């Protein structure tokens, strides 16, 4: 029957494994921004498909970027929100 045919979503893959030259670095906040939510939370690897090894270093790099004000910890404190409230 038709309902037996399940929709198979596109298989997730680790972007850092697929492209070895892709830098996983706290300085590249533009890449790290793909792995955090709009509110700044780190997205689980269950959802992004990142492998365990790269997720571990990704977490460290995101935290370093937050430390250096390249990424925000949470939107409440972000520059965009602060500017609007002034």
């Amino acid at each position, binding site marked *: 029957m038709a309902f037996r045919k399940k929709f198979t979503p596109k298989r997730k893959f680790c972007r850092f494994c697929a492209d070895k030259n892709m830098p996983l670095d706290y*300085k590249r*906040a533009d890449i790290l921004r793909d792995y955090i939510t709009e509110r700044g939370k780190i997205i689980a690897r269950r959802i992004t498909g990142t492998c365990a090894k790269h997720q571990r270093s990704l977490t460290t790099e995101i935290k*370093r970027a937050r430390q*250096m*004000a390249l990424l*925000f*910890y949470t939107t409440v404190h*972000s*520059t965009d929100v*602060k500017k609007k409230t002034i």
Partner: protein
Amino acid sequence: MLNNYETLLLLSPELAEENRKEIVSNLTGIIERDGGIMAPIDDWGIRTLAYPVRKVTRGHYVRLVFQAPGAFVAELERNIRITDGIFKFVTVRLDEAPKAADEAPKAADEAPKAVDEAPKAADEAPKTEEA
């Protein structure tokens, strides 16, 4: 034994050009005095911060890449803490030797440069950030 390190400094945007150079040259002087090897200084210029630091929303980033013995990092960080005008810093150990011309990271605020080079390409491939 020498390790590879990089230190990213976040300096006050209100610092004058010569004060900033003095701070950086002071730190490089300390690195070289203690037997470290400096790579060229990577100056990112003034950028908008993700969140305000000391009530300022902009900051000047400077990256120092150097080779030094492990015990020296504590000494460098002690000096950074003493120096006025440095808001934040982070020291990271690098795996590979510092390259002479390490590519500067492209941030969202540096986008206009890319637009000038290829205005047509930007139309064909719209960025998800703007959507």
